[in-house]
């Protein structure tokens, strides 16, 4: 799995951090998403897919 994020689209909702805290974080200044792990291991995949589906800014792209 390969994750990419589009910072310019992110609205800082932080839903990704709630769903997959080991993969996503947010910058302190403006809440923009920080990708902690672009190629997480299999145990994280379901959570990452869910984060990509519910991200309200469609800022998370997943390639498998």
């Amino acid at each position, binding site marked *: 799995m390969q994750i990419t994020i589009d910072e310019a689209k992110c609205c800082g909702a*932080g839903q990704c951090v709630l769903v997959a805290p080991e993969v996503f974080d*947010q910058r302190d200044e403006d809440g923009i998403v920080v990708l902690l792990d672009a190629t997480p291991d299999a145990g994280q995949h379901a959570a990452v897919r869910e984060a990509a589906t519910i991200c309200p800014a469609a800022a998370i792209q997943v390639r498998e």
Partner: protein
Amino acid sequence: MSAAHTPRPRIAVVGAAAAGLAAAEGLRRLGWDGEITLVGDEPHPPYDRPPLSKHVLSGSWEPERTALRDAGQLTELGLDLRLGTRAVAYDPERRALTLGDAGRTVLRCAGVIVATGVLPRTLPGGDGVEGVHVLRTLDDALALRRRLATPGRRLAVVGGGVLGAEAAAVARALGHQVTLVGTEDTVMGRVLGPEVGRLLADVHRAQGVTLRSGQAVTGIRAEAGRATGVVLANGTVVEADDVLLAIGSVPAVDWLRGPGAEAVGLDLSDGLRCDEFCAAAPGLYGAGDVARWYHPGLGRELRIEHRMNASEQGLAAARNLLAELDPERFGERRPFTPVPYFWSDQYDLKLQAHGVLAGADRTEVRVLGKDPLRLAALYGTAGRATGILTIGLPPRRTRSLRALIATPAPWPEAITGLTETVEA
């Protein structure tokens, strides 16, 4: 059901925007290998609405950027995608969906997810008048943007809710003369309460927006088919070249009405009424702005017109529909009990709200700074904290405030948590 006649069972998702796409994507990801028909009456592939009143209106994003998925991602989902096609009827007993295409195609379905959203309210006298706008679709946003491309326009925004406030902010930043006409003395006061509403009104005033509060708009003034202003209840006229109506919306459920709906007792009085599983009838689920459902955690019905809910509920409806169709394979249905979330961007301010704020019987607002406005607020009902709002607070602090209302804390305890968080 006539599944034997069709090679692959079909699930139809009606409405091809945020909620419909999340539902379709959820169905695939959860393992549905039958047909997924995604029906949308707009000509565009699924796109996102929040940027319309922000980056698209301001001109900083081209329309393509609002696409929710690229062509490759849509192809991967293997959808039977029918754009530019309206669903015109549904018979819940036969599970038959009628499309408004030339052949009036009837699709027999294993299940249907309704994600048809809402339609903007309009004012009498505004139909067909040039210069009168609503802002719901990409085409609406581009139409208003074209008008705002000419400098020095006078824009009257009717409605002091989130949509009106965002559009006013963008038009002001572009240098236009903007009048915000609402029936309250506040901006977003109906949802955020009078105290925060007044602070936001101050922000808009300081940015040069004229607020005409306390007056209902009774009509649109036009000359030769062109808008020239809006008429207020006290008879005065706000002169304008363009009028944006941001006065709320109505759920798009009319296509569901009919004897079939009555036979199974569908309640369409404020959106499609669903139970805690997002089910409106056997095999029929609702998601997004159109769906009113019972939230068991809060013990009440909600219908939420926010972007986050559209995705979350789309996914939840997909999961529960699959569980209904094949519990052995997809497991038990689960109640949908989210902590609602919305944000709004106005000028350089980012508002973030978690939980339920509207209708609170108490609020506690802590103003942390006035220029720029920074604040944290707590909203409560019946002795418990149910919602939080932050403006200009770091995400970690917003998340710790969210924890106070994820399971509604008793009010005094939440106040202590608020104090600790803002003073940390």
